[in-house]
């Protein structure tokens, strides 16, 4: 790029950032709103008991392969019965919504959800529902079944969950066309399932209930003739269990203590509800509203990255690339950073409500971190993710991070938002 183009690009960037502030101010009263501190808050309190408190642990998970993954257990029951099974090793994921369980980890037989036959716009006969959901680097596929789910002292009745299986129904072409490998086994998922407690009431929502070309085609009906993409009503889609609790249903807090060095494990809590009990108040946490895509903006070295997010299911700080950050990639480990000495990074996050705060963290050499096979908790693990900041689980160490569900009122406003 020649100097003239560089300066023109700089002008464009400055103009965009200048006018975006003006525009934001025109439509919001939040300008000049609260601004977070530059470092983590004083050591937060980790709730240890309560009907709305689920213990979580950062460890290598049930397959022994994870780093920086938080795991918890839930009890699933055949709806309306006492036929139940407690499943541990579920990845606690604020970056997705819905409970997914490996078929191979499930010993109770859950009833299949089917379309109601004869309804306009749906299949003529009652047909079983299945789903293909792409994650980063893998997809999950399998039937949607119903379970009464008990988590800590909370309960979601007849919750649609995804049962992960390559064989219950053949994987359809629309699923393999994502080009991602299946994460339907313990060795590929690294967990017995995913406890998705993110922003949304359903993993897809209105889009997958729509007929025609606006439907992204994640849900299928599977008559004996084969699975076909279908419009599936929101209530029959895989649901965020929290939003179906009778109380404490407007969001969650992940509470994990601060970490100063690599460790073998770490214990914390997943607390249900925001401002619904004495143990889940915002306590002055800054609210960062999510935009329509569930993202916030992160500014780094004069550039803004508008598809940034906070996600307990990402196992590191994933951001930008080595060219932009100056932090070298690992040569043998694809997707991690390997600086010769630990690098400090500072960036400014801004929510859609105008609130902003500085985030500071450090990135160590992933090769060095992984050289001790017993460690699974790394507060300085990171890697590249182009044009965005993905604040993964290390961001949660030493912070109580609130994730508020879409459309649900809380003392900090209506979700979706993060607060910490």
């Amino acid at each position: 790029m020649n100097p003239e183009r560089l300066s023109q690009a700089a002008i464009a960037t400055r103009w965009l950032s200048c006018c975006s502030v003006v525009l934001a101010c025109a439509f919001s009263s939040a300008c000049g709103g609260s601004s977070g501190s530059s470092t983590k808050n004083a050591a937060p309190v980790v709730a240890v008991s309560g009907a709305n408190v689920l213990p979580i642990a950062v460890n290598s998970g049930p397959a022994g392969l994870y780093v920086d993954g938080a795991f918890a257990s839930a009890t699933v029951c055949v709806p309306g019965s006492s036929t139940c099974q407690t499943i541990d090793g579920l990845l606690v994921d604020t970056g997705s919504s819905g409970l997914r369980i490996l078929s191979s980890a499930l010993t109770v037989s859950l009833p299949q959800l089917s379309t109601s036959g004869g309804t306009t716009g749906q299949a003529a006969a009652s047909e079983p529902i299945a789903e293909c959901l792409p994650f980063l680097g893998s997809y999950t596929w399998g039937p949607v079944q119903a379970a009464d789910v008990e988590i800590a002292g909370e309960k979601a009745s007849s919750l649609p969950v995804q049962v992960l299986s390559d064989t219950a129904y053949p994987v359809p072409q629309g699923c393999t066309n994502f080009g991602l490998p299946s994460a339907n086994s313990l060795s590929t998922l690294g967990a017995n399932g995913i406890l998705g407690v993110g922003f949304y009431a359903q993993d897809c929502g209105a889009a997958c209930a729509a007929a025609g070309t606006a439907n992204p085609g994640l849900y299928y009906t599977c008559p004996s003739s084969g699975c076909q993409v279908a419009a599936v009503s929101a209530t029959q889609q895989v649901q965020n269990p929290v939003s179906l609790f009778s109380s404490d249903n407007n969001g969650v807090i992940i509470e994990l203590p601060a970490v100063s060095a690599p460790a073998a494990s770490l214990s914390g809590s997943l607390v249900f509800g925001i401002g619904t009990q004495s143990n889940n108040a915002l306590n002055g946490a800054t609210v960062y509203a999510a935009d329509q895509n569930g993202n916030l903006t992160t500014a780094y070295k004069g550039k803004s990255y508008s598809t940034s997010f906070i996600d307990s299911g990402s196992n590191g700080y994933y951001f930008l690339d080595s060219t932009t950050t100056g932090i070298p990639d690992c040569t043998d480990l694809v997707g991690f950073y390997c600086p010769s000495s630990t690098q400090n990074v500072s960036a400014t996050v801004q929510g859609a409500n105008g609130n902003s705060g500085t985030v500071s963290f450090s990135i160590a050499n992933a090769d060095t971190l992984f050289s001790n096979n017993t460690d699974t908790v790394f507060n300085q693990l990171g890697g590249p993710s182009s044009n965005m900041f993905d604040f993964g689980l290390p961001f949660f160490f030493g912070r109580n991070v609130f994730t508020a569900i879409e459309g649900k009122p809380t003392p900090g406003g209506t979700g979706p938002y993060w607060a910490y």
Partner: protein
Amino acid sequence: MRRCQDLLQRLLNFILPSVAVIVLALAAAFPARAALGGDAASVQADQLHMQGSLRKTAATAYSVHEIQAPTGTVVREYVSPEGKVFAVSWQGPWLPDMHQLLGSYFDQYAQAAKAQAGVRAARRPLLIEQSGLVLQMGGHNRSFSGRAYLPDQLPSSVTQEAIQ
């Protein structure tokens, strides 16, 4: 505000001479050929597949064909002066049909993605850096973005930063 207006004027001075925005009318059926690495006609094949609307932006070194799908996902295809698609990018709530988008590079991508699966986590951004193909993908449930390009086919004046 005055500084804003000044910057705006300078920005427009920069944009107007070098870029023309053309909205294309829908053309007749095109062969359903690959996008990445394919010819310009493959863009229309992608458009038909996505049932999206197409907007073409012509710059000096290349043109950008932007397909807005009814699902809300936006795909951009970067076409060289020789008419070859040398890069694609995508952003939106849903992951596009990568088989359609990557064409003959799909198998290479799928094999590389599979090789990385389960390495210390199932859930992290995807990064493929091979001599003939670079692909980066990040995001979360209901927000995906990424890009893929052919490093040995980038027009000489195009940097990877231009592919967004």
